[in-house]
């Protein structure tokens, strides 16, 4: 027989977390931030800016956007209808996505406001989610600067929104909180925002940023392009010069244990194992003491169809005095 049936305890399912740098090339730190003048000048530039890692504009790294509950900070769609503008659209979009309830408001460490900045990581950069505790975002405005991270390493109870886990953005680096103010929050305006790892989004609290580094969005509806609130945050990120984060992915693996016993799989149908056309084994020693070398493990279904295959890194000697145990990993 050349096939052997698996037993129930030959299968083990495992889920392992794999982390990597977030940015292009699995780099954990992004230091160059470029926008496309074409995208910024286009109609969707009224909603968001795409940020690239090089002037070749090949790989989008993240998008910056601004939302305001009153539609302030961007021009109304129609002069006759006040309060309906790209910023109110963005506000509604993130409120629906994160809070799910049109009557809810973002509460940043107890402080609510009327507007947000959001940083949304491009889908191609992360595998499944962002890794909590890995973020360091530096914002700089004039002589003021701020290091932001999330408080995931400090909290004992994780909070959830409609968009999954939520952590507060606080002053600090790589998950380590700067406790100049309590909890790493701003002095009186709560936390600096929310970190939503499951939708790979950061939501920033403009009130706290204004209090700490005087980074303040324009909040009028007759705003000109030079006052674009997306550009305001973009400039602060460029001046800060460093955005560090990791991605995270859970890989589910099947571990399958292949157990050829001592009396099994000791002869080979390899043509070089056979001498001549009548099937004699190549060496007389092989009649009672065959030596074969396992190189390949094939996994089959009941119909003997080859579904998956694994190669050993080097041949494994098998004879009547040896048993083998090979662990095969199959990722999905």
């Amino acid at each position: 027989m050349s096939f052997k049936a698996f037993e129930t305890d030959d299968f083990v399912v495992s889920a392992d977390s794999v982390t990597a740098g977030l940015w292009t090339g699995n780099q954990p730190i992004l230091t160059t931030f470029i926008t496309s003048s074409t995208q910024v000048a286009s109609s969707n530039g009224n909603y968001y800016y795409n940020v690239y890692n090089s002037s070749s504009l090949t790989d989008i790294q993240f998008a910056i956007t601004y939302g305001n509950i009153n539609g302030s900070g961007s021009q109304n769609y129609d002069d006759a209808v006040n309060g309906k503008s790209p910023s109110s659209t963005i506000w509604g979009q993130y409120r629906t996505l994160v809070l799910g309830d049109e009557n809810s408001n973002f509460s940043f460490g107890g402080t609510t406001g009327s507007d947000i900045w959001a940083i949304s990581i491009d889908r191609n950069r992360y595998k499944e989610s962002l890794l909590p505790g890995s973020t360091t975002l530096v914002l700089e405005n004039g002589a003021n600067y701020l290091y932001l991270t999330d408080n995931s390493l400090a909290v004992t109870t994780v909070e959830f929104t409609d968009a999954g886990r939520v952590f507060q953005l606080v002053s600090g680096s790589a998950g380590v909180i700067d406790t100049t103010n309590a909890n790493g929050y701003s002095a009186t305006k709560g936390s600096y925002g929310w970190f939503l790892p499951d939708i790979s989004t950061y939501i920033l609290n403009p009130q706290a940023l204004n209090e700490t580094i005087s980074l303040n969005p324009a909040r009028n509806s007759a705003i000109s392009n030079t006052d674009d609130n997306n550009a305001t945050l973009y400039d602060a990120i460029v001046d800060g010069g460093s955005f560090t984060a990791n991605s995270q992915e859970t890989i589910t693996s099947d571990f399958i244990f292949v157990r050829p016993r001592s009396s099994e799989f000791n002869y080979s149908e390899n043509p070089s194992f056979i001498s001549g056309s009548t099937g004699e084994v190549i060496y007389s020693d092989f009649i009672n003491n065959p030596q074969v070398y396992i190189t390949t493990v094939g996994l089959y279904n009941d119909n003997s169809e080859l579904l998956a295959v694994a190669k050993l890194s080097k041949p494994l000697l098998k004879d009547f005095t040896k048993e083998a145990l090979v662990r095969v990993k199959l990722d999905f």
Partner: protein
Amino acid sequence: MGYLNNSVVTVDAILTTRGRQLLAQNDGSFRITQFALADDEIDYTLYNPTHPSGSAYYGQALQNMPLLEAFPDETQIMKYKLTTLPRGTAKMPILDVGYTNIVIKQGASLAITPQTLNYLGGNQSETSGYTATISDIRTMSTFEGVGINTADATALNSATTTLGTNVSATVVGTTINLRATTVNTLFGSNTSLNATLVITGRDSGARIQVPITVTKVS
């Protein structure tokens, strides 16, 4: 394709083309239930039972050889299976299908009834039958196995074929019936089509590969 790093034991499996196809069908046919071992790439003529340094060195030329990574084409891997036979076996089972290569005209039929030589004390048809895999099912309008009526063989022989796609097909039987395609468009400007037929004894593990040429009639 590259060489595997042989400084550590690595056994990451990849899905074969057929495995991906069955996984995509999502009908429960992708269910690993058994395994086989093979010694593809091993050349036993390199084994040296007269090595002057003794028996510890007989397999010197084989045991540290670097191995190639796995191929996803199920017809190109697991070619030479290891098999379980009684100790003292002097002759290995080998298959005889009556052909070393098959040339068949477009639309013509052929029945192949393999025999296993040197198996269980003689030459015989194996009780569990034979697995036959054709590398490109498009070349055949009929490709079926008959003579084995177990549930798994019936399921395999009635499996849906992915039409128009260059994929392999596998059937089980004691006799394999072929009928070459009548479709002219498959030939294009060529006068023949080529494929390979791999037949494996389900009990013995003996294997034979036969090239098939389908010649265009008109």
